[in-house]
Protein backbone atom coordinates (compact mmCIF):
# COMPACT_ATOMS: atom_id res chain seq x y z
CA UNK A 1 0.00 0.00 0.00
CA UNK A 2 1.31 3.48 -0.75
CA UNK A 3 2.53 5.62 2.11
CA UNK A 4 -0.15 8.25 1.47
CA UNK A 5 -2.81 5.90 2.77
CA UNK A 6 -1.07 5.56 6.12
CA UNK A 7 -0.56 9.31 6.29
CA UNK A 8 -4.21 9.92 5.55
CA UNK A 9 -5.35 7.41 8.12
CA UNK A 10 -2.97 8.82 10.73
CA UNK A 11 -4.21 12.35 10.06
CA UNK A 12 -7.80 11.26 10.40
CA UNK A 13 -6.95 9.39 13.62
CA UNK A 14 -5.19 12.47 14.93
CA UNK A 15 -8.26 14.65 14.38
CA UNK A 16 -10.66 12.14 15.94
CA UNK A 17 -8.13 11.72 18.73
CA UNK A 18 -8.43 15.39 19.63
CA UNK A 19 -12.17 15.02 20.15
CA UNK A 20 -11.55 11.84 22.18
CA UNK A 21 -9.00 13.85 24.12
CA UNK A 22 -11.58 16.50 25.03
CA UNK A 23 -13.95 13.79 26.22
CA UNK A 24 -11.19 12.22 28.32
CA UNK A 25 -10.19 15.66 29.61
CA UNK A 26 -13.55 15.76 31.38
CA UNK A 27 -12.85 12.44 33.09
CA UNK A 28 -9.36 13.53 34.03
CA UNK A 29 -10.47 16.85 35.53
CA UNK A 30 -13.12 15.08 37.61
CA UNK A 31 -10.67 12.47 38.87
CA UNK A 32 -7.89 14.99 39.46
CA UNK A 33 -10.05 17.09 41.78
CA UNK A 34 -12.90 14.98 43.14
CA UNK A 35 -10.86 11.70 43.13
CA UNK A 36 -13.85 9.82 41.79
CA UNK A 37 -13.65 7.76 38.61
CA UNK A 38 -16.71 8.61 36.55
CA UNK A 39 -17.94 5.24 35.33
CA UNK A 40 -20.86 6.96 33.62
CA UNK A 41 -18.67 9.13 31.40
CA UNK A 42 -19.50 7.60 28.02
CA UNK A 43 -23.16 7.43 28.98
CA UNK A 44 -23.11 11.16 29.67
CA UNK A 45 -21.59 11.66 26.24
CA UNK A 46 -24.40 9.79 24.51
CA UNK A 47 -26.85 12.02 26.40
CA UNK A 48 -25.11 14.99 24.78
CA UNK A 49 -25.19 13.26 21.40
CA UNK A 50 -28.95 12.68 21.61
CA UNK A 51 -29.46 16.29 22.66
CA UNK A 52 -27.52 17.33 19.56
CA UNK A 53 -29.69 15.05 17.45
CA UNK A 54 -32.90 16.55 18.86
CA UNK A 55 -31.79 20.17 18.65
CA UNK A 56 -30.36 19.70 15.18
CA UNK A 57 -33.67 18.24 14.06
CA UNK A 58 -35.68 21.04 15.66
CA UNK A 59 -33.52 24.10 15.00
CA UNK A 60 -31.30 23.02 12.08
CA UNK A 61 -28.33 24.59 13.85
CA UNK A 62 -24.80 23.39 13.26
CA UNK A 63 -23.43 20.98 15.91
CA UNK A 64 -20.53 23.39 16.41
CA UNK A 65 -23.02 26.07 17.48
CA UNK A 66 -25.11 23.61 19.47
CA UNK A 67 -22.14 22.55 21.54
CA UNK A 68 -22.44 25.72 23.64
CA UNK A 69 -25.98 25.13 24.96
CA UNK A 70 -25.35 21.38 25.22
CA UNK A 71 -22.20 21.89 27.27
CA UNK A 72 -24.25 24.20 29.51
CA UNK A 73 -26.98 21.57 29.99
CA UNK A 74 -24.39 18.91 30.81
CA UNK A 75 -22.72 21.31 33.23
CA UNK A 76 -25.96 21.66 35.17
CA UNK A 77 -26.47 17.90 35.06
CA UNK A 78 -22.95 17.25 36.38
CA UNK A 79 -23.31 19.89 39.08
CA UNK A 80 -26.55 18.38 40.35
CA UNK A 81 -25.18 14.83 40.16
CA UNK A 82 -22.23 15.78 42.33
CA UNK A 83 -24.34 17.73 44.84
CA UNK A 84 -27.09 15.15 45.07
CA UNK A 85 -25.36 11.80 44.78
CA UNK A 86 -21.59 11.88 44.77
CA UNK A 87 -20.72 14.36 47.53
CA UNK A 88 -22.07 12.03 50.25
CA UNK A 89 -19.76 9.34 48.82
CA UNK A 90 -16.53 11.34 48.94
CA UNK A 91 -15.13 9.49 51.93
CA UNK A 92 -16.55 6.09 51.02
CA UNK A 93 -14.27 3.31 49.70
CA UNK A 94 -13.52 3.12 45.99
CA UNK A 95 -15.75 0.13 45.30
CA UNK A 96 -18.68 1.94 46.85
CA UNK A 97 -18.21 4.98 44.58
CA UNK A 98 -17.77 2.63 41.67
CA UNK A 99 -21.12 0.96 42.38
CA UNK A 100 -22.87 4.31 42.64
CA UNK A 101 -21.65 5.41 39.22
CA UNK A 102 -22.32 2.01 37.66
CA UNK A 103 -25.92 2.38 38.84
CA UNK A 104 -26.09 5.88 37.34
CA UNK A 105 -24.65 4.55 34.07
CA UNK A 106 -27.16 1.69 33.99
CA UNK A 107 -30.05 4.10 34.47
CA UNK A 108 -28.76 6.54 31.83
CA UNK A 109 -28.18 3.89 29.14
CA UNK A 110 -31.57 2.31 29.59
CA UNK A 111 -33.46 5.59 29.79
CA UNK A 112 -31.91 6.45 26.44
CA UNK A 113 -32.90 3.04 25.13
CA UNK A 114 -36.50 3.64 26.22
CA UNK A 115 -36.68 7.15 24.76
CA UNK A 116 -34.68 6.81 21.54
CA UNK A 117 -34.74 3.09 20.75
CA UNK A 118 -31.82 0.85 19.83
CA UNK A 119 -31.26 2.02 16.23
CA UNK A 120 -28.27 4.06 15.12
CA UNK A 121 -29.17 7.66 14.33
CA UNK A 122 -27.06 10.35 12.74
CA UNK A 123 -27.25 13.86 11.37
CA UNK A 124 -26.13 15.25 8.05
CA UNK A 125 -24.57 18.70 8.00
CA UNK A 126 -23.93 20.84 4.94
CA UNK A 127 -20.26 19.87 5.06
CA UNK A 128 -20.71 16.16 5.84
CA UNK A 129 -19.15 15.11 2.55
CA UNK A 130 -16.66 17.96 2.14
CA UNK A 131 -12.95 17.42 2.48
CA UNK A 132 -9.77 19.44 2.46
CA UNK A 133 -6.75 18.59 0.38
CA UNK A 134 -3.31 19.39 1.73
CA UNK A 135 -0.65 18.02 -0.60
CA UNK A 136 -1.11 14.24 -0.49
CA UNK A 137 -3.45 14.47 2.50
CA UNK A 138 -7.20 14.44 2.16
CA UNK A 139 -9.11 15.02 5.40
CA UNK A 140 -12.82 15.23 6.22
CA UNK A 141 -14.05 18.76 6.79
CA UNK A 142 -16.29 17.64 9.67
CA UNK A 143 -13.33 16.11 11.48
CA UNK A 144 -11.22 19.24 10.99
CA UNK A 145 -13.96 21.47 12.43
CA UNK A 146 -14.57 19.10 15.34
CA UNK A 147 -10.88 18.88 16.17
CA UNK A 148 -10.53 22.66 15.97
CA UNK A 149 -13.47 23.15 18.32
CA UNK A 150 -12.02 20.56 20.70
CA UNK A 151 -8.78 22.55 20.85
CA UNK A 152 -10.66 25.78 21.55
CA UNK A 153 -12.71 24.24 24.37
CA UNK A 154 -9.62 22.60 25.88
CA UNK A 155 -7.69 25.89 25.72
CA UNK A 156 -10.55 27.69 27.44
CA UNK A 157 -10.50 25.11 30.22
CA UNK A 158 -6.73 25.41 30.63
CA UNK A 159 -7.07 29.20 30.84
CA UNK A 160 -9.86 28.88 33.41
CA UNK A 161 -7.78 26.70 35.71
CA UNK A 162 -4.62 28.72 35.18
CA UNK A 163 -5.78 32.32 35.35
CA UNK A 164 -9.07 32.65 37.24
CA UNK A 165 -9.47 32.79 41.00
CA UNK A 166 -12.13 30.10 40.87
CA UNK A 167 -9.80 27.84 38.91
CA UNK A 168 -7.12 28.43 41.50
CA UNK A 169 -9.55 27.53 44.29
CA UNK A 170 -10.43 24.28 42.54
CA UNK A 171 -6.75 23.45 42.14
CA UNK A 172 -6.32 24.10 45.84
CA UNK A 173 -9.04 21.53 46.62
CA UNK A 174 -7.27 19.03 44.40
CA UNK A 175 -3.92 19.60 46.10
CA UNK A 176 -5.10 19.49 49.68
CA UNK A 177 -8.68 18.74 50.72
CA UNK A 178 -8.15 19.58 54.43
CA UNK A 179 -6.10 22.68 53.65
CA UNK A 180 -8.75 23.99 51.30
CA UNK A 181 -11.37 23.59 54.02
CA UNK A 182 -9.17 25.29 56.59
CA UNK A 183 -8.80 28.42 54.47
CA UNK A 184 -12.57 28.54 54.14
CA UNK A 185 -13.22 27.22 50.65
CA UNK A 186 -16.62 25.66 50.08
CA UNK A 187 -15.19 22.35 48.92
CA UNK A 188 -18.51 20.66 48.17
CA UNK A 189 -19.57 23.51 45.90
CA UNK A 190 -16.17 23.52 44.18
CA UNK A 191 -16.35 19.75 43.68
CA UNK A 192 -19.76 20.16 42.09
CA UNK A 193 -18.41 22.92 39.83
CA UNK A 194 -15.58 20.62 38.79
CA UNK A 195 -17.89 17.74 38.04
CA UNK A 196 -20.02 20.19 36.06
CA UNK A 197 -16.98 21.33 34.08
CA UNK A 198 -15.98 17.73 33.37
CA UNK A 199 -19.52 17.01 32.23
CA UNK A 200 -19.46 20.14 30.04
CA UNK A 201 -16.28 18.85 28.35
CA UNK A 202 -17.87 15.54 27.56
CA UNK A 203 -21.01 17.36 26.43
CA UNK A 204 -19.05 19.50 23.99
CA UNK A 205 -17.17 16.44 22.75
CA UNK A 206 -20.46 14.60 22.25
CA UNK A 207 -21.94 17.45 20.21
CA UNK A 208 -18.89 17.53 17.94
CA UNK A 209 -18.66 13.78 17.60
CA UNK A 210 -22.25 13.77 16.37
CA UNK A 211 -21.03 15.44 13.17
CA UNK A 212 -18.67 12.49 12.63
CA UNK A 213 -20.38 9.32 13.91
CA UNK A 214 -23.87 7.91 14.54
CA UNK A 215 -25.27 7.36 18.01
CA UNK A 216 -26.91 4.37 19.71
CA UNK A 217 -27.41 4.00 23.48
CA UNK A 218 -24.98 1.09 23.61
CA UNK A 219 -21.90 3.04 22.50
CA UNK A 220 -21.93 4.74 25.91
CA UNK A 221 -20.11 1.97 27.83
CA UNK A 222 -17.62 1.60 24.97
CA UNK A 223 -16.75 5.30 25.23
CA UNK A 224 -16.45 5.08 29.00
CA UNK A 225 -13.78 2.43 28.48
CA UNK A 226 -12.12 4.48 25.75
CA UNK A 227 -11.97 7.48 28.08
CA UNK A 228 -10.30 5.32 30.77
CA UNK A 229 -7.75 4.05 28.31
CA UNK A 230 -6.95 7.59 27.20
CA UNK A 231 -6.59 9.19 30.61
CA UNK A 232 -4.52 6.35 32.00
CA UNK A 233 -2.26 6.41 28.98
CA UNK A 234 -1.81 10.16 29.29
CA UNK A 235 -1.81 10.30 33.08
CA UNK A 236 -4.94 10.30 35.24
CA UNK A 237 -5.48 13.80 36.59
CA UNK A 238 -3.15 15.47 34.08
CA UNK A 239 -4.90 17.82 31.66
CA UNK A 240 -2.29 17.89 28.86
CA UNK A 241 -1.95 14.14 29.41
CA UNK A 242 -5.59 13.57 28.48
CA UNK A 243 -5.18 15.40 25.17
CA UNK A 244 -1.92 13.61 24.41
CA UNK A 245 -3.51 10.28 25.32
CA UNK A 246 -6.43 11.08 23.01
CA UNK A 247 -4.07 11.77 20.11
CA UNK A 248 -2.07 8.60 20.75
CA UNK A 249 -5.14 6.40 21.02
CA UNK A 250 -6.76 8.03 17.98
CA UNK A 251 -3.69 7.36 15.83
CA UNK A 252 -3.11 3.87 17.26
CA UNK A 253 -6.69 2.82 16.58
CA UNK A 254 -6.72 4.29 13.08
CA UNK A 255 -3.44 2.65 12.06
CA UNK A 256 -4.34 -0.62 13.77
CA UNK A 257 -7.57 -0.69 11.79
CA UNK A 258 -5.71 -0.27 8.50
CA UNK A 259 -2.78 -2.59 9.22
CA UNK A 260 -4.96 -5.41 10.55
CA UNK A 261 -8.75 -5.53 10.53
CA UNK A 262 -10.94 -2.60 11.63
CA UNK A 263 -12.80 -4.79 14.13
CA UNK A 264 -9.54 -5.44 16.00
CA UNK A 265 -8.61 -1.78 16.29
CA UNK A 266 -9.43 -1.29 19.95
CA UNK A 267 -7.16 -4.22 20.79
CA UNK A 268 -4.27 -1.93 19.98
CA UNK A 269 -5.59 0.75 22.28
CA UNK A 270 -5.86 -1.78 25.11
CA UNK A 271 -2.43 -3.14 24.28
CA UNK A 272 -1.00 0.37 24.56
CA UNK A 273 -2.80 0.82 27.89
CA UNK A 274 -1.32 -2.38 29.29
CA UNK A 275 2.18 -1.30 28.26
CA UNK A 276 1.76 2.12 29.84
CA UNK A 277 0.34 0.68 33.06
CA UNK A 278 3.28 -1.67 33.37
CA UNK A 279 6.12 0.67 32.62
CA UNK A 280 4.75 4.00 33.70
CA UNK A 281 1.66 3.36 35.84
CA UNK A 282 1.10 7.06 36.52
CA UNK A 283 0.75 7.66 32.75
CA UNK A 284 2.97 9.44 30.27
CA UNK A 285 2.48 12.91 31.75
CA UNK A 286 1.20 11.89 35.17
CA UNK A 287 2.78 12.84 38.47
CA UNK A 288 3.87 10.05 40.79
CA UNK A 289 1.55 10.80 43.68
CA UNK A 290 -1.45 8.51 43.36
Amino acid at each position, binding site marked *: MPVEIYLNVAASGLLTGLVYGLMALGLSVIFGVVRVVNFAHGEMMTVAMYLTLLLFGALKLDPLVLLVPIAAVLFVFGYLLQIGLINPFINRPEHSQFMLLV*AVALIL*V*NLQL*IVFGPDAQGIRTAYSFDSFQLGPLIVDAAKVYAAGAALVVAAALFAFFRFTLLGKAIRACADNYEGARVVGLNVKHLYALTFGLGAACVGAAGAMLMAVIDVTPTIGPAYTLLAFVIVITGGLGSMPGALLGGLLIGITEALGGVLFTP*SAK*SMFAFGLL*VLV*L*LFRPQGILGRKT*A
Partner: protein
Amino acid sequence: MITRLLEGVPRRGLAMLAALLVLLLAFPLFASGYLLAIGFLILYFAYVGQAWNIMMGFAGQLSLGHSLYVGLGAYAAAALYVHFGLSPWIGLLASIGTCALAGAVIGFLAFRFGVAGVYFAILTIAFAEFARIGFDHFTWVRGSSGLFLPVANYTENDLWNLRGSPRMFYYLMLALTAGAFVLCHALLRSRMGYYWLAIRESPEAAQALGVNIFRYKMYAVVLSAAMTSLAGVVFAFYYNNLFPEQIFHISRSIELILGPIIGGIGTLVGPLVGALLLTGLAEGMGELLLALGVDVPGVKQVFYGICLLLVVMFLPHGVWPPLARKLGLER
Protein backbone atom coordinates in the same frame (compact mmCIF):
# COMPACT_ATOMS: atom_id res chain seq x y z
CA MET B 1 -10.66 -31.00 60.84
CA ILE B 2 -14.44 -30.74 60.94
CA THR B 3 -14.49 -29.79 64.59
CA ARG B 4 -11.95 -27.08 63.83
CA LEU B 5 -14.13 -25.78 61.02
CA LEU B 6 -17.16 -25.63 63.27
CA GLU B 7 -15.35 -24.04 66.18
CA GLY B 8 -16.89 -20.75 67.23
CA VAL B 9 -19.69 -20.82 64.67
CA PRO B 10 -22.92 -19.81 66.41
CA ARG B 11 -25.28 -22.76 66.73
CA ARG B 12 -28.14 -20.71 65.38
CA GLY B 13 -26.14 -19.97 62.24
CA LEU B 14 -25.41 -23.65 61.72
CA ALA B 15 -29.06 -24.54 62.06
CA MET B 16 -30.02 -21.88 59.53
CA LEU B 17 -27.33 -23.06 57.11
CA ALA B 18 -28.52 -26.65 57.42
CA ALA B 19 -32.10 -25.54 56.78
CA LEU B 20 -30.97 -23.55 53.74
CA LEU B 21 -29.06 -26.53 52.38
CA VAL B 22 -32.07 -28.82 52.78
CA LEU B 23 -34.26 -26.23 51.07
CA LEU B 24 -31.81 -25.90 48.17
CA LEU B 25 -31.50 -29.68 47.84
CA ALA B 26 -35.26 -30.15 47.79
CA PHE B 27 -35.93 -27.16 45.51
CA PRO B 28 -35.84 -29.05 42.15
CA LEU B 29 -38.41 -31.55 43.45
CA PHE B 30 -41.19 -28.99 43.36
CA ALA B 31 -39.82 -26.23 41.12
CA SER B 32 -40.98 -25.72 37.55
CA GLY B 33 -38.46 -25.54 34.69
CA TYR B 34 -38.52 -21.77 34.83
CA LEU B 35 -37.91 -21.61 38.57
CA LEU B 36 -35.16 -24.19 38.25
CA ALA B 37 -33.41 -22.00 35.68
CA ILE B 38 -33.60 -19.07 38.09
CA GLY B 39 -32.31 -21.29 40.88
CA PHE B 40 -29.35 -22.21 38.69
CA LEU B 41 -28.63 -18.54 37.99
CA ILE B 42 -28.75 -17.65 41.67
CA LEU B 43 -26.29 -20.41 42.53
CA TYR B 44 -24.08 -19.43 39.59
CA PHE B 45 -23.87 -15.81 40.75
CA ALA B 46 -23.40 -16.91 44.36
CA TYR B 47 -20.45 -19.04 43.29
CA VAL B 48 -18.65 -16.51 41.09
CA GLY B 49 -19.41 -13.82 43.65
CA GLN B 50 -17.73 -15.94 46.30
CA ALA B 51 -14.72 -16.46 44.03
CA TRP B 52 -14.45 -12.72 43.30
CA ASN B 53 -14.88 -11.96 46.99
CA ILE B 54 -11.60 -13.74 47.75
CA MET B 55 -9.76 -11.10 45.78
CA MET B 56 -11.75 -8.02 46.76
CA GLY B 57 -13.43 -8.91 50.02
CA PHE B 58 -10.50 -10.75 51.59
CA ALA B 59 -7.33 -9.38 49.98
CA GLY B 60 -8.70 -5.98 48.98
CA GLN B 61 -7.81 -6.11 45.27
CA LEU B 62 -10.60 -4.71 43.09
CA SER B 63 -10.98 -6.76 39.90
CA LEU B 64 -13.40 -5.46 37.28
CA GLY B 65 -12.38 -8.04 34.71
CA HIS B 66 -13.52 -11.36 36.11
CA SER B 67 -15.37 -12.11 32.88
CA LEU B 68 -11.88 -12.90 31.57
CA TYR B 69 -11.68 -15.99 33.79
CA VAL B 70 -15.27 -17.05 33.12
CA GLY B 71 -14.62 -16.76 29.39
CA LEU B 72 -11.21 -18.44 29.34
CA GLY B 73 -12.50 -21.29 31.50
CA ALA B 74 -15.57 -21.75 29.34
CA TYR B 75 -13.66 -21.63 26.06
CA ALA B 76 -10.86 -23.98 27.18
CA ALA B 77 -13.18 -26.80 28.24
CA ALA B 78 -15.67 -26.27 25.40
CA ALA B 79 -13.00 -26.16 22.69
CA LEU B 80 -11.39 -29.38 23.95
CA TYR B 81 -14.81 -31.04 23.99
CA VAL B 82 -15.78 -29.83 20.51
CA HIS B 83 -12.44 -30.53 18.85
CA PHE B 84 -11.24 -33.66 20.63
CA GLY B 85 -14.31 -35.00 22.41
CA LEU B 86 -12.51 -34.62 25.74
CA SER B 87 -14.73 -34.83 28.80
CA PRO B 88 -15.19 -31.49 30.59
CA TRP B 89 -13.82 -33.15 33.71
CA ILE B 90 -10.49 -33.39 31.90
CA GLY B 91 -11.07 -30.10 30.10
CA LEU B 92 -11.55 -28.29 33.37
CA LEU B 93 -7.94 -29.02 34.22
CA ALA B 94 -7.03 -26.98 31.15
CA SER B 95 -9.51 -24.31 32.24
CA ILE B 96 -8.07 -24.09 35.73
CA GLY B 97 -4.53 -24.05 34.37
CA THR B 98 -5.27 -21.33 31.80
CA CYS B 99 -7.06 -19.11 34.28
CA ALA B 100 -4.54 -19.60 37.07
CA LEU B 101 -1.85 -18.65 34.58
CA ALA B 102 -3.80 -15.61 33.34
CA GLY B 103 -4.41 -14.53 36.94
CA ALA B 104 -0.75 -15.05 37.77
CA VAL B 105 0.40 -12.98 34.78
CA ILE B 106 -1.95 -10.11 35.59
CA GLY B 107 -1.12 -10.28 39.28
CA PHE B 108 2.61 -10.48 38.65
CA LEU B 109 2.63 -7.55 36.25
CA ALA B 110 0.43 -5.40 38.47
CA PHE B 111 1.91 -6.15 41.89
CA ARG B 112 5.53 -6.10 40.70
CA PHE B 113 5.12 -2.67 39.15
CA GLY B 114 3.05 -1.27 42.00
CA VAL B 115 -0.18 -0.94 40.04
CA ALA B 116 -2.93 -0.62 42.67
CA GLY B 117 -6.41 0.72 43.36
CA VAL B 118 -8.22 2.27 40.41
CA TYR B 119 -5.27 1.52 38.13
CA PHE B 120 -5.35 -2.17 39.00
CA ALA B 121 -9.11 -2.27 38.39
CA ILE B 122 -8.68 -0.72 34.95
CA LEU B 123 -5.81 -3.07 34.13
CA THR B 124 -8.14 -6.01 34.77
CA ILE B 125 -10.76 -4.44 32.48
CA ALA B 126 -8.09 -3.97 29.81
CA PHE B 127 -7.10 -7.64 29.88
CA ALA B 128 -10.73 -8.78 29.65
CA GLU B 129 -11.41 -6.42 26.74
CA PHE B 130 -8.21 -7.54 25.05
CA ALA B 131 -9.39 -11.14 25.32
CA ARG B 132 -12.86 -10.23 24.05
CA ILE B 133 -11.54 -8.70 20.86
CA GLY B 134 -8.82 -11.33 20.54
CA PHE B 135 -11.32 -14.20 20.74
CA ASP B 136 -13.44 -12.43 18.12
CA HIS B 137 -10.57 -13.15 15.72
CA PHE B 138 -9.53 -16.53 17.11
CA THR B 139 -10.66 -18.90 14.37
CA TRP B 140 -9.90 -22.15 16.22
CA VAL B 141 -12.86 -21.35 18.47
CA ARG B 142 -14.90 -19.91 15.53
CA GLY B 143 -14.23 -16.25 16.39
CA SER B 144 -17.17 -13.90 16.54
CA SER B 145 -19.57 -16.38 14.95
CA GLY B 146 -19.59 -18.31 18.23
CA LEU B 147 -18.69 -21.78 19.46
CA PHE B 148 -21.58 -24.21 19.74
CA LEU B 149 -21.63 -27.47 21.67
CA PRO B 150 -23.56 -30.41 20.21
CA VAL B 151 -26.81 -30.68 22.14
CA ALA B 152 -27.64 -34.12 23.55
CA ASN B 153 -31.12 -35.35 24.36
CA TYR B 154 -32.24 -34.58 27.85
CA THR B 155 -33.77 -37.92 28.80
CA GLU B 156 -30.53 -39.28 30.16
CA ASN B 157 -28.01 -37.55 32.37
CA ASP B 158 -24.42 -38.08 31.30
CA LEU B 159 -22.43 -36.58 34.14
CA TRP B 160 -19.09 -37.53 32.59
CA ASN B 161 -19.75 -35.44 29.47
CA LEU B 162 -21.98 -32.92 31.27
CA ARG B 163 -24.84 -33.57 28.89
CA GLY B 164 -28.16 -33.67 30.63
CA SER B 165 -31.13 -32.03 32.25
CA PRO B 166 -31.20 -28.62 33.92
CA ARG B 167 -31.67 -30.46 37.20
CA MET B 168 -28.23 -32.05 36.89
CA PHE B 169 -26.67 -28.64 36.29
CA TYR B 170 -28.54 -27.23 39.25
CA TYR B 171 -27.09 -29.84 41.59
CA LEU B 172 -23.64 -29.42 40.07
CA MET B 173 -23.78 -25.66 40.69
CA LEU B 174 -25.11 -26.28 44.19
CA ALA B 175 -22.15 -28.56 44.92
CA LEU B 176 -19.74 -25.91 43.65
CA THR B 177 -21.41 -23.17 45.67
CA ALA B 178 -21.42 -25.22 48.85
CA GLY B 179 -17.80 -26.22 48.27
CA ALA B 180 -16.76 -22.62 47.72
CA PHE B 181 -18.60 -21.57 50.87
CA VAL B 182 -16.80 -24.13 53.02
CA LEU B 183 -13.46 -23.36 51.37
CA CYS B 184 -13.83 -19.64 52.00
CA HIS B 185 -14.87 -20.27 55.57
CA ALA B 186 -11.75 -22.38 56.10
CA LEU B 187 -9.55 -19.81 54.33
CA LEU B 188 -10.80 -16.99 56.51
CA ARG B 189 -9.62 -18.91 59.58
CA SER B 190 -6.28 -19.88 58.12
CA ARG B 191 -3.01 -18.01 58.45
CA MET B 192 -3.39 -16.92 54.81
CA GLY B 193 -6.85 -15.53 55.52
CA TYR B 194 -5.54 -13.36 58.32
CA TYR B 195 -2.69 -12.17 56.10
CA TRP B 196 -5.22 -11.22 53.43
CA LEU B 197 -7.31 -9.23 55.87
CA ALA B 198 -4.17 -7.48 57.09
CA ILE B 199 -3.23 -6.60 53.50
CA ARG B 200 -6.75 -5.35 52.81
CA GLU B 201 -6.81 -3.12 55.86
CA SER B 202 -3.29 -1.73 55.45
CA PRO B 203 -0.70 -3.08 53.03
CA GLU B 204 2.05 -0.98 54.60
CA ALA B 205 1.36 -2.21 58.12
CA ALA B 206 1.15 -5.82 56.92
CA GLN B 207 4.47 -5.50 55.17
CA ALA B 208 6.05 -3.90 58.21
CA LEU B 209 4.94 -6.91 60.24
CA GLY B 210 6.74 -9.22 57.84
CA VAL B 211 3.87 -10.41 55.64
CA ASN B 212 5.08 -11.08 52.11
CA ILE B 213 2.31 -9.02 50.55
CA PHE B 214 3.33 -9.77 46.98
CA ARG B 215 3.09 -13.51 47.52
CA TYR B 216 -0.24 -13.44 49.34
CA LYS B 217 -1.84 -11.09 46.84
CA MET B 218 -0.69 -13.50 44.12
CA TYR B 219 -2.30 -16.44 45.94
CA ALA B 220 -5.56 -14.51 46.13
CA VAL B 221 -5.61 -13.68 42.40
CA VAL B 222 -4.64 -17.18 41.27
CA LEU B 223 -7.14 -18.89 43.57
CA SER B 224 -9.93 -16.52 42.60
CA ALA B 225 -9.18 -16.96 38.89
CA ALA B 226 -9.04 -20.75 39.16
CA MET B 227 -12.34 -20.90 41.03
CA THR B 228 -14.01 -18.57 38.54
CA SER B 229 -12.88 -20.79 35.65
CA LEU B 230 -15.03 -23.65 36.98
CA ALA B 231 -18.09 -21.45 36.72
CA GLY B 232 -17.10 -20.82 33.12
CA VAL B 233 -16.96 -24.56 32.39
CA VAL B 234 -20.46 -25.10 33.81
CA PHE B 235 -21.71 -22.02 31.97
CA ALA B 236 -20.42 -23.36 28.63
CA PHE B 237 -22.02 -26.80 29.03
CA TYR B 238 -25.28 -25.41 30.40
CA TYR B 239 -25.90 -22.85 27.66
CA ASN B 240 -24.13 -24.79 24.86
CA ASN B 241 -23.04 -21.63 23.05
CA LEU B 242 -20.24 -19.16 23.56
CA PHE B 243 -19.75 -15.75 21.98
CA PRO B 244 -16.74 -13.59 22.83
CA GLU B 245 -18.99 -10.50 22.63
CA GLN B 246 -21.10 -11.88 25.44
CA ILE B 247 -18.91 -13.88 27.73
CA PHE B 248 -15.93 -11.50 27.94
CA HIS B 249 -18.05 -8.34 27.97
CA ILE B 250 -17.48 -5.81 30.73
CA SER B 251 -21.15 -5.96 31.67
CA ARG B 252 -20.60 -9.64 32.62
CA SER B 253 -17.79 -8.60 34.96
CA ILE B 254 -19.96 -5.96 36.56
CA GLU B 255 -22.95 -8.27 36.82
CA LEU B 256 -20.97 -10.86 38.75
CA ILE B 257 -19.58 -8.43 41.32
CA LEU B 258 -22.92 -6.76 42.10
CA GLY B 259 -24.02 -9.75 44.20
CA PRO B 260 -21.18 -9.69 46.73
CA ILE B 261 -21.20 -5.89 46.91
CA ILE B 262 -24.94 -5.73 47.53
CA GLY B 263 -24.80 -8.73 49.87
CA GLY B 264 -21.82 -7.48 51.84
CA ILE B 265 -18.22 -7.39 50.71
CA GLY B 266 -15.80 -9.63 52.60
CA THR B 267 -18.54 -11.66 54.28
CA LEU B 268 -19.19 -15.35 53.64
CA VAL B 269 -22.95 -15.11 53.33
CA GLY B 270 -22.93 -11.82 51.39
CA PRO B 271 -22.43 -13.33 47.92
CA LEU B 272 -25.30 -15.77 48.54
CA VAL B 273 -27.70 -13.14 49.79
CA GLY B 274 -26.69 -10.71 47.04
CA ALA B 275 -27.18 -13.29 44.28
CA LEU B 276 -30.57 -14.24 45.67
CA LEU B 277 -31.72 -10.62 45.97
CA LEU B 278 -30.45 -9.40 42.61
CA THR B 279 -31.53 -12.38 40.51
CA GLY B 280 -34.85 -12.48 42.32
CA LEU B 281 -35.28 -8.76 41.84
CA ALA B 282 -34.44 -8.87 38.13
CA GLU B 283 -36.75 -11.80 37.43
CA GLY B 284 -39.51 -10.49 39.66
CA MET B 285 -39.35 -7.14 37.91
CA GLY B 286 -39.61 -8.86 34.53
CA GLU B 287 -42.70 -10.75 35.67
CA LEU B 288 -44.29 -7.67 37.19
CA LEU B 289 -43.76 -5.59 34.04
CA LEU B 290 -45.13 -8.45 31.95
CA ALA B 291 -48.22 -8.59 34.16
CA LEU B 292 -48.66 -4.83 33.86
CA GLY B 293 -48.36 -5.11 30.09
CA VAL B 294 -45.27 -2.88 29.87
CA ASP B 295 -43.14 -4.19 27.05
CA VAL B 296 -40.46 -1.57 26.49
CA PRO B 297 -36.84 -2.76 26.49
CA GLY B 298 -34.83 -1.01 29.16
CA VAL B 299 -37.59 -0.39 31.73
CA LYS B 300 -36.49 -3.39 33.78
CA GLN B 301 -32.85 -2.24 33.84
CA VAL B 302 -33.83 1.27 34.90
CA PHE B 303 -35.64 -0.09 37.95
CA TYR B 304 -32.74 -2.42 38.60
CA GLY B 305 -30.38 0.57 38.49
CA ILE B 306 -32.56 2.54 40.89
CA CYS B 307 -32.61 -0.37 43.36
CA LEU B 308 -28.83 -0.62 43.18
CA LEU B 309 -28.54 3.09 43.77
CA LEU B 310 -30.75 2.89 46.86
CA VAL B 311 -28.84 -0.05 48.31
CA VAL B 312 -25.41 1.56 47.89
CA MET B 313 -26.71 4.82 49.30
CA PHE B 314 -28.44 3.48 52.38
CA LEU B 315 -26.66 0.19 53.14
CA PRO B 316 -22.97 1.01 52.61
CA HIS B 317 -21.79 -2.34 54.00
CA GLY B 318 -24.31 -4.40 52.07
CA VAL B 319 -27.47 -6.18 53.09
CA TRP B 320 -25.95 -9.02 55.09
CA PRO B 321 -24.23 -7.29 58.07
CA PRO B 322 -27.41 -5.54 59.33
CA LEU B 323 -29.43 -8.66 58.53
CA ALA B 324 -27.03 -10.83 60.52
CA ARG B 325 -27.43 -8.52 63.47
CA LYS B 326 -31.23 -8.83 63.21
CA LEU B 327 -30.97 -12.63 63.11
CA GLY B 328 -28.75 -12.62 66.17
CA LEU B 329 -25.74 -14.06 64.34
CA GLU B 330 -23.37 -11.24 65.23
CA ARG B 331 -20.40 -12.52 67.16
